[in-house]
């Protein structure tokens, strides 16, 4: 009955969603997005932080329409299927901090779980260490969950609470329309645009937005989550979400082969570095933070679109975290980790452990 009502919640549904994302992500690269970065939620949130001037790393500033599409696509879908539920109040400040450190960890590796598999599918073997780190971080998070860790209950709340993050995204979209990119200029109105580097590389605005909306729809229906894929396997030996995640890698690999975008190796991979330990360590931090916050960065956007005000706080944490990551020299570059990157990973891990060990009260 349930599966009849929602095809995308079935095994074939989640596999179809993984396949569709696996097709569109490499095509977004062909159409202009940076290499092995067809979709990267962390990188794109970071680019949005740059477009807003929250950090001033000149090469990573662009208001990514994919992210806006993810949230608005999920919002529209949630309404269409009567699943929009405004809710909030489950550890908002904790989620903010987890969002910030998840972003910092992801930027030490240079990618979120989505990009980790897209890097792998493009032949960037450094991603293997990132994925191992992600699995390790999620595994530790699963141990906390088993031990009773939780962030408390959310409460039903005013509809407008659930609307705030979608409205912010709509505002970003309007800003982009009022102040569009002017070729060769670093600023258009209030928005910053990269003239070189990954931030200058993007698919056409309309293409990015429409694919973002489509993925927002698919992910809202299927509950696609890259962290949940690993967590559910570790906790319950459940392979439902994992089958979608694995399909994404396999399909993206095949599409990359067809498009001539598969370049295997460790050295000189696009927007990547070869410091294996910190590719691993950065993603341990990100994976643990995602697990403690209950969703990968993509899933947090989709949840925010369907009215989850706590997921919205996580998203804001990620955007602010990106500001810190670039202002403080925490983010890596193709040359390797930033001057304070290693310290930030250690501080982030200690913070996550503090959160995991101290928030274990049984829920009544």
């Amino acid at each position: 009955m349930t599966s009849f009502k929602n095809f995308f919640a079935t095994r074939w549904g989640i596999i179809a969603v993984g396949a569709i994302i696996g097709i569109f992500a490499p095509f977004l690269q062909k159409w202009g997005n940076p290499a092995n970065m067809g979709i990267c939620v962390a990188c794109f949130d970071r680019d949005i932080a740059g477009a807003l001037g929250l950090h001033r790393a000149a090469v990573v500033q662009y208001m990514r329409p994919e992210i806006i599409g993810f949230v608005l696509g999920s919002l529209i879908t949630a309404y269409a299927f009567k699943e929009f539920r405004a809710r909030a109040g489950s550890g908002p400040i904790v989620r903010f901090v987890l969002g910030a450190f998840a972003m910092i960890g992801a930027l030490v590796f240079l990618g979120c779980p989505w990009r980790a598999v897209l890097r792998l599918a493009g032949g960037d073997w450094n991603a293997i260490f990132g994925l191992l780190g992600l699995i390790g971080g999620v595994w530790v998070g699963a141990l906390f969950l088993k031990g009773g860790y939780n962030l408390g209950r959310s409460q039903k709340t005013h509809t407008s609470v659930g609307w705030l993050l979608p409205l912010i995204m709509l505002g970003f979209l309007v800003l982009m329309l009022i102040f569009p990119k002017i070729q060769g200029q670093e600023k258009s109105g209030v928005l910053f645009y990269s003239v070189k580097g990954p931030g200058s590389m993007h698919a056409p605005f309309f293409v990015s937005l429409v694919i973002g909306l489509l993925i927002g729809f698919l992910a809202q229906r299927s509950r696609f989550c890259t962290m949940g894929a690993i967590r559910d396997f570790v906790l319950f030996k459940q392979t439902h979400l994992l089958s979608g995640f694995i399909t994404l890698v396999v399909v993206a690999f095949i599409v990359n082969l067809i498009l001539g975008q598969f370049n295997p190796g460790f050295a000189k991979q696009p927007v990547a570095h070869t410091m294996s330990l910190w590719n691993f360590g950065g993603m341990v931090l990100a994976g643990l933070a995602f697990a403690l916050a209950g969703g990968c960065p993509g899933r947090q956007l989709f949840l925010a679109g369907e009215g989850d005000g706590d997921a919205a706080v996580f998203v804001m944490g990620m955007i602010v975290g990106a500001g810190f990551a670039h202002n403080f020299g925490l983010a890596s570059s193709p040359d390797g980790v930033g001057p304070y990157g290693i310290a930030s990973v250690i501080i982030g891990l200690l913070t996550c452990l503090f959160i995991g060990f101290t928030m274990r009260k049984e829920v009544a």
Partner: protein
Amino acid sequence: MSKIVDARGLSCPQPVLLALSEIKKFNKGEIVILVDTDTSKENVSRAAATQGWNVEVERVEEEYRLVLRKD
């Protein structure tokens, strides 16, 4: 008299963890799980079904009452 577990307001994967711990406690019988999102409804149903429990979904206003049964 069935056991009632209130998993409303809890985010993923808490509702499933609670449901599975009850399932392990009672090898058979009836367990009622209250959830408030469609995701939790699907996740708990899927987890219970893999343990061989029959799941009946009742919609109560904007929430769900999942009745898990096993003989």
